[in-house]
């Protein structure tokens, strides 16, 4: 442990230890699928937030709640999807 450094900072700095136990642990984590993908993390977060809020907001349709929570969890710039008119006159999202 380095004084004045928290666990996150130590993780970023990385370890100097190259033990076989550490290598084996990394292999085990990798075999389990490794770091979760961003989409899986977002899906999990949406599920958790909906599960927490649904009992507090019974008047909101579960499908709508899911859409709202998904939008709110995205960064603002990614929330916007405009309906655009193509040159041929058709509209696309």
């Amino acid at each position, binding site marked *: 442990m380095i004084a004045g450094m928290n666990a996150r900072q130590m993780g970023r700095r990385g370890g100097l230890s190259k033990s076989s136990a550490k290598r084996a642990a990394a292999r085990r984590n990798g075999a389990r699928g490794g770091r979760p993908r961003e989409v899986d993390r977002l899906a999990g977060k949406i599920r958790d*937030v909906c599960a927490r*809020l649904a009992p*507090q*907001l019974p008047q*909101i349709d579960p499908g*709508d*709640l899911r*859409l*709202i*929570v*998904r*939008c*709110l969890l995205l*960064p*603002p*710039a*990614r*929330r*916007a*999807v*405009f*309906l*655009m*008119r193509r040159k041929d006159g058709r*509209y*696309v*999202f």
Partner: protein
Amino acid sequence: MDATSSEISERTLVALAKALRAVRLEAIVIGNSASMLNGAPVTTQTIDLLIRDTGPNRRKLARFAKEIGGSTPVRISELSNIESIESALAVPIEIHYDRIAGGLTFSFLRSRAQLVTVGREKLAVAALADVIRSKEAANRPKDRAVLPILRDTLAVKSKLEAPPED
């Protein structure tokens, strides 16, 4: 690979914010664009902006239109002071002056607006409660259609932003 609609929409917002900053035009995003940026799962065919109706702002608006490769602002009807700008952006820009339905003034909306980050730019976006107030006052069929989901979004936002209960 073609850009996704979400990427095009994001680029549109960034270009809009950049152009507003370049000409120093103070504007607030209102209407359903504001609803989207506030997290409501809705869409729209225009970006509505509210600005103060002053001489300097009219000149800045003309420069803004050029900046986005757009037309001169054109009144959408003789019965309304809303102006529209067709441009190279994905959707037209509609300009409202001084106040919107519900008697909501520029200064009132600005005092409650949020600064939202888009790319490296910032946009002032009307609060969702104010968008709802304005749509309730306008009370057109298209406003009534969208109000339930806006109210639901506001309820969810309030719950998410509330401090956790013990």
